[in-house]
């Protein structure tokens, strides 16, 4: 059966609003952030994300694992693009060298060299700020949205009954998958199976994951068929449905939606007049030679 995310009633900024209003605001925030590469515009957006995080009422213990994973992920990719210099090619075409670090050794005649340029530093910074802001806003949603309201929230956002319920089920599928994975892991460990003892080549390793992957996959397929049967047996989709839970917009929700849309419109205007693109301080550009 489907399990839910670890939602709790909390005193938090997110839960102060109607879930529909929050999702609209989240959508606007997401698009606005994706429009910009300019750190000067991105920093205020990150400030909003941090404000939401600090007022979320989610304790560090609850969020620690997922948070560290995501931070690790974001830092890893920012560092990777910084080292390789790839990824930023689309937003800048000229680089200004701060320092060139060359290794003391060669590998098969190739000397690993790292060019630290103004553009790469700022690109890595922008990338980190962008992805971090989006990640923070996203991971807070499952902790803050009441699962009982998933369906009616999406219905309230204008999706038809069937799609709204499908979204509801999808939101709950992820933690359910995690639970099934854990149960299967436990069952196989009780049969002497140890995941850390994986040896051999890639194909062999994948084969050895069979005892986990097969039951989890089969279980996911069977459960989705069960869910469809259970819905059919209780007349899902015969006509317009009533949603037991009700949501009512209040003034603050309208304000939040207004703010979200204003932010998005402002972002479009800023982009239109040519601002918000990748930016590096011009003083630095003068200081360092171009490549």
């Amino acid at each position, binding site marked *: 059966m*489907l399990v839910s995310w670890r939602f709790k009633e909390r005193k938090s900024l997110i839960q102060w609003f109607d879930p529909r209003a929050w999702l609209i605001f989240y959508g606007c925030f997401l698009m606005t952030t994706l429009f910009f590469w300019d750190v000067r515009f991105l920093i205020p957006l990150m400030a909003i994300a941090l404000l939401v995080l600090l007022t979320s009422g989610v304790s560090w213990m609850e969020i620690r694992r997922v948070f560290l994973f995501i931070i690790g992920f974001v830092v890893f990719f920012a560092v990777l693009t910084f080292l390789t210099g790839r990824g930023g090619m689309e937003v800048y075409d000229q680089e200004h060298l701060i320092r060139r670090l060359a290794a003391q050794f060669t590998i098969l005649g190739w000397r690993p060299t790292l060019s630290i340029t103004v553009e790469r530093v700022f690109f890595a910074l922008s990338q980190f700020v962008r992805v971090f802001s989006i990640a923070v806003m996203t991971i807070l949603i499952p902790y803050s949205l009441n699962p*009982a309201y998933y369906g009616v929230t999406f219905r309230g956002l204008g999706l038809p009954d069937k799609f709204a319920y499908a979204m509801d089920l999808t939101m709950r599928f992820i933690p359910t998958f995690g639970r099934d994975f854990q149960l299967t892991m436990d069952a196989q460990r*009780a049969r002497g199976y140890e995941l850390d003892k994986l040896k051999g080549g890639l194909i062999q390793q994948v084969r050895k994951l069979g005892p986990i992957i097969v039951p989890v996959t089969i279980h996911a397929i069977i459960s989705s068929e069960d869910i469809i049967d259970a819905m059919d047996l209780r007349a899902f989709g015969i*006509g317009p449905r*009533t949603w037991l839970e009700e949501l009512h917009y209040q003034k603050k929700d309208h304000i939040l939606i207004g703010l979200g849309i204003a932010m998005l419109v402002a972002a479009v205007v800023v982009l239109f007049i040519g601002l918000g693109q990748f930016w590096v301080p011009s003083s630095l550009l003068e200081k360092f030679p171009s490549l």
Partner: protein
Amino acid sequence: MAKQFPVVVDNLAFRYRDREDLAIREISFNANSGELLLIAGASGCGKTTLIRAINGLVPRSYKGDLTGQILLFGEDTRDWKLSRISQNVATVLQDPERQILGTKVINEVAFGLENFGLPREEILERGDWALEQLNIYHLRDRETFNLSGGEKQKIALAGVLALNPSILLLDEPLASLDPASAQETLHAVRGLVDQGMTVLMVEHRVEDVLAINPNRILFMQEGEIRYLGSPEGLIEVVDYHEVKLPAEMVISRAAADPPPQPLQVLPGAATSSTEDHDPLVSFEDVRFGYDKDTEVLHGINLQIHRGDVIAVLGPNGAGKTTFVKHAIGLLKPKDGHVFVNGLSTHKATVAQIATTLGYVFQSPSHMLFAPTVYEELAFGPKNLNHPPDQIKKEVHEALDIVNLSDMEDDPPLALSFGQQKRVSIAAILAMRSRILVMDEPNAGQDYENYMNFMDSILQMPGFEAIIFVTHDVDLALIYANRIILVADGVIRADGPPQEILADFELITSCRLVPTSLLEANIARKSKLTSFLRAEALAHV
């Protein structure tokens, strides 16, 4: 005009796509308003297929060839959509886990009503009414996934009751319930029948259902009807080994047969040459909670010794599974220690403990993966590095015990639930651990099958101790030499069955219900040294 029965099944036959044999054939019967029809029969006899044909999942969701007719209130349902059938027929599936959709109890109960587009006030009114009918109104605002198995089953029932159907189909509704919950559910069902509902109930626990006077019993065998008629008549045609009948009835009939062979319980424990009296497993003030705020186990202390056959009994949600999962280190105590063979579970990996302690999970579907039953069973011994020749022997012996020798090459994922459960037991038996732990070994199994494999498992040479979690008082009474009652996360009682189970006040406070076999044993107490099964009581 002839009277229109709510359900008429006429010469029904069905073959699942990709299967050669018919799952059911020549099924004809009708059911009246205010009738409770009990459908019984061994695992795989076609009971569930029949239920699916009536609620329309066969052939709409489970494809295949359906011949014959099903009439609901005189109308042929062949061309009806599932949603139309579901307006007349409500179904509670075998496993509530597979049926519950709502996140909160009230959402779950309201689901069907929401789909009919009823006004919100009416939904709430009818939802609350259904919860009150089953005495579970206090669960109304709880989250469904945090409920115990028994509570889930009642929520699933409330979800269909709220629809106020004229026909109710129940597929093994008692499978995961503690005895008191099962009794309550049965009485609730009887109440619905008395109000005029037609109820078709599939159930292995025939003896329990007899207590609420089913109007008729339909007994199936190999896809056909073997008996259809009054409960008294069934008792004449079936063998007491096949169906669990009231104890005194079995005693009077078994008197004519030769007495059953006494079991050689745990021969491995008796002949063990090591003379140490150290406990095999010991729990020292074990405390545990799944999160910081709620503690599930509040200080468990106990020792398991060589020769113990322990039945762990207790209400739904008492912490029985949490408790036994500590024995193999899948859960580690938050406070206190568990020692297996002198080794703390804090320090050993689960795989290390698995060499001494085999654990059979409640649900088989989380572990089956191999292309054949043989490979499935060989997986554990291989992980423990048993030599190939030995593995072969271990696998074959395990298959023999669970009565699946002819299915060695079948894919386990294609077997029925009951068969899968037996594969999951055999997979652990093949590992030849010294201690065996089974979580609800007889759930979803028919009587004859589970009695046979329990007999064999207890007589296996290798085991030194066996622990099983169960809701079945009779299983505990027949096989265990030690009973542990768990309730609210503490051990309420620990001792020999004659002592614990004879204390009716104690056991009813742990939501157990004295069975006819227990009463028959107590009535003959002066002549017994230990509790016996009904066939053996006949010769006392």
